[in-house]
């Protein structure tokens, strides 16, 4: 499936009410490790990835800083893609997840 189709699928899942763990955000490196470990164990189904990472279609602001994919270290600007190995999905710049890091 091409990137565009997966992006559309993610959008439809989230608009359709898929519940994701938006909070608590990963404030510390330990929090990040816990979430990443869960992703590694989850066996990479798309729905589990979205739920565990706390995907949203809008940007979340946390601690006074906006956390969009667009400024995240794992985001490839030109491909509009999340390169975090445990996620590895196409995204949109204004989306957000709790593994955001700058």
């Amino acid at each position: 499936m091409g990137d565009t189709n997966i992006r559309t699928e993610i959008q439809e899942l989230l608009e359709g009410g898929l519940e994701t763990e938006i909070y608590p955000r990963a404030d510390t490196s330990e929090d990040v490790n816990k979430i990443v470990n869960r992703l590694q164990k989850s066996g990479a189904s798309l729905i589990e990835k979205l739920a565990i990472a706390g995907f949203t279609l809008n940007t979340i602001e946390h601690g006074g800083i906006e956390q969009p994919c667009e400024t995240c270290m794992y985001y490839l600007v030109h491909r509009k893609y999340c390169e975090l190995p445990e996620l590895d999905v196409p995204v949109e710049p204004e989306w957000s997840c709790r593994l955001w890091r700058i």
Partner: protein
Amino acid sequence: MANLLWLQGGACSGNTMSFLNAEEPSACDLVTDFGINILWHPSLGMELGDNLQKLLKSCISGETPLDIFVFEGTVVQAPDGTGEWNRFAGRAMKDWVTELCDAAQYVVAIGDCATYGGIPATAPNPSESTGMQFLKREHGGFLGTDFASKAGLPVINIPGCPCHPDWVTQILVAVASGRGGEIGLDEFQRPKTFFSSFTQTGCTRNMHFAYKVSATEFGQRKGCLFYDLGCRGPMTHSPCNRILWNRQSSKTRAGMPCLGCTEPEFPFFDLEPGTLFKTQTVMGVPKDLPTGVDKTGYVKLTGAAKAAAPAWAEEDIFVV
């Protein structure tokens, strides 16, 4: 002719191994071209037992002039300050160190253990290890803050785990050729010529640092290792990307993060699992920012740089 004596305390011999691989100049060049007479070295010295004791005592008495005393490894003080855990030539090594430092024209500490305590001095520090004139960032160490060798210099610190062989041989040549007084030292007594710039200076991944393109795995041929893999290149003083290792490469060029081994705090994070090769963050922002950059500036700069990143920066471009 300058007499050099090299001893090892709480050490893994890594700095000796490194030193023996020196190229510009080599360990042999020190002897043949630069007039350094190696009185004794743990891997090269011929004397054993009584003969070695005799040699050490003759250095202490001044009968054999001791121009350069090189120490590798920590000064071990356990148990209870006696130093008996590290006996050498019939007594605690720390006692030899005290007397040899008093006799030497120059004292040179080699590697992170001898300079700042390194891994052995990390809590809980069972060997009561310390560096020669520092314990981590704290000035003093084994010899005390006021120590100066006969030539009037404090301990010359050449840190690294191990240090690059050419940093050692070049400093030894400077000292042996009477230019020891010209070696400018920084606040941690490192020669400025090597330790004013950063590991990042000359790194082939600098473009990726600038455009905020991250490497996500070791050895990747694109991407900077700062954002995800814990590279300490932007806050570590070392010439690792100016004076290449084996004259070929460096950690960061090969896709391995800098661990900051030339800084007094090395190894960082008390060696807790999951901390070494992972950029530590607080609310998504790196805990340790590049030297001189504040959090607000970092967030603004990163957003702008990321938005401006050209497509090639995201491609595989052979930076190794």
